[in-house]
């Protein structure tokens, strides 16, 4: 029944891609624009890319964003994986309500998570004498990252044969050795996937950061938001273009490698069959 889709279907898909990529195209093109205007093309320049690296507010925002995303993703991956292992050994009676609570930050509107954490930090801050800043921003990111790691590690633990851990321990491993040498390699795809999702969520987050970072710390998204109130400098277009191109290159490499591996596997299969 594998019928190639009609011309109409292809045109429809092309139009949707035009819709999805038009703003990105505009953004990239205007990072090379001479004037500051975002609709009037006045000539080609690399100036914004040069100026970008000497703009301390954008560079600081970039460092904050990268630092918070990397630390939060790493912490969330470790904590999330350990928690998923613990949860998988719990009885259903305990596990289901805990997983439901774990889902709250995923399901809830971002703004609700943001303002509720904001209330908590202000409340705790008045007792413990701290202000909103990098610390609260990081805690907020870890809090909304962990659920994604747990959700991506849990299925891998369930797919794993329970006897493997027991067998390793019967053969003389301590629990920790068995965990490190047997369980971790088995659930690795889930861990990596969880870490990538966590990092992506963190780096793209605006709403939760906005409510939890206070006024002295700024992520790139927050920098952009405060600029949208006046006018966005083409420098921001430039840095976004750089980030976008690096992700694009990374994805293409991963995709090409995957296709190559698949092609190799097929080749090998054919050789084996022919023998």
């Amino acid at each position, binding site marked *: *029944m594998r019928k*190639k*889709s009609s011309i109409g*279907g*292809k045109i*429809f*898909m092309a139009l*949707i*891609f035009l*819709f*999805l990529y*038009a*703003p*990105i195209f*505009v*953004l990239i093109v205007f990072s090379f624009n001479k004037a500051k205007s975002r*609709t009037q093309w006045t000539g080609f320049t690399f100036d914004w890319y040069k100026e970008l690296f000497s703009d301390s507010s954008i560079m600081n925002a970039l460092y904050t964003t990268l630092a918070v995303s990397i630390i939060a993703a790493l912490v969330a991956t470790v*904590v999330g994986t*350990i*928690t998923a292992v*613990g*949860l998988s*050994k*719990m009885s259903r009676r305990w596990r289901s309500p*805990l997983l439901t*609570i*774990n889902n*709250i*930050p995923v*399901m*809830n*509107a*971002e*703004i*609700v998570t943001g*303002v*509720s*954490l*904001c209330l*908590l930090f202000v*409340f705790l801050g008045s007792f413990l004498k701290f202000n909103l800043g990098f610390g609260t921003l990081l805690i*907020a990111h870890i*809090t909304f990252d*962990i659920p994604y790691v747990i959700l991506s590690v849990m299925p891998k633990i369930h797919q794993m044969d329970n006897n493997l851990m027991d067998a390793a321990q019967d053969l003389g491993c301590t*629990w920790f050795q068995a965990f490190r040498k047997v369980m971790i390699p088995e659930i690795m795809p889930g861990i990596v996937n969880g870490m990538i999702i966590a990092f992506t969520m963190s780096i*793209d987050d*605006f*709403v939760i950061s906005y*409510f939890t970072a206070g006024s002295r710390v700024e992520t*790139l*998204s927050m920098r*952009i938001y405060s600029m*949208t109130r006046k006018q966005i400098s083409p420098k*921001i277009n430039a840095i976004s273009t750089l*980030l976008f191109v690096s*992700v*694009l290159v990374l*994805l293409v490499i991963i*995709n090409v490698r*995957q296709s190559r591996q698949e092609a190799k596997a097929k080749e090998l299969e054919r050789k084996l069959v022919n023998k």
Partner: protein
Amino acid sequence: MRTKFLAVPYVVWMAIFVVAPIILVVIYAFTTADGSFTLGNFSNMLDYLSVFGRSFYLAFISTVICILIGYPIAYILSKQGARFQRAVIMLFMLPMWMNFLLRTYSWMSILENTGLLNRFLNFIGLPSISIINTQAAVVIGMVYNFLPFMILPIYSVIVKIDRSLIEAAQDLGGNSVAVFRRVLFPLSLPGIISGITMVFVPAVSTFVISQLLGGGKQMLLGDLIEMQFLGSAYNPHLGSAIALVMMIVVTIFMYIINKFGDGEEQAVML
């Protein structure tokens, strides 16, 4: 070694950073600034009924448009070759890696009265259209930002549907409408439902899209809440009450949608 105790640290973490903040929202919603109990925050909210109405209306319209575009796309895609599918899925995810504020801001350049769209229209001899700062612009922004979240879950369900079921339905004399209505649609419903959740919740609570593309003239629930916490109208008690009501309405809505989905699935099995 009792493995299950490994979960204890995170359970404590959740109690502090997930459960306690929501309890605080509830407490704030029912108190005044000096800490005494009140229902005033909820009665004050009546002034903003139009904002509630507009938010749910625009989120609803956007969700419907996302289904109408996303479903055919997911379906067409599921019939292509494996490599093509993977490449296209990657292309759907890729825009998410560009900061979403900037992508939305970029729509301003396109939709403005002297923007790129109108220039293009004038260039080919058509009159200008005025979209920016209207509800249409906000809906475009919502559909643009959340469409991938509708396509991906529907696609991942459709691609797993056993093709022989559709062939069987056709062999048994079903025309394409009947096959879609009785077989394909019910089987892909779980994907549509998770797509609805992933589009509707962010759409109803956004404040960036309405500020940039609605020009502050299309105030949504998100704007209202943001104003109470960080904006001009500082009043976290009212803000908490609005957030609480929004959370409850959305939860009820999702519960109904999920029930509807369960019912359909059972109907298919019978």
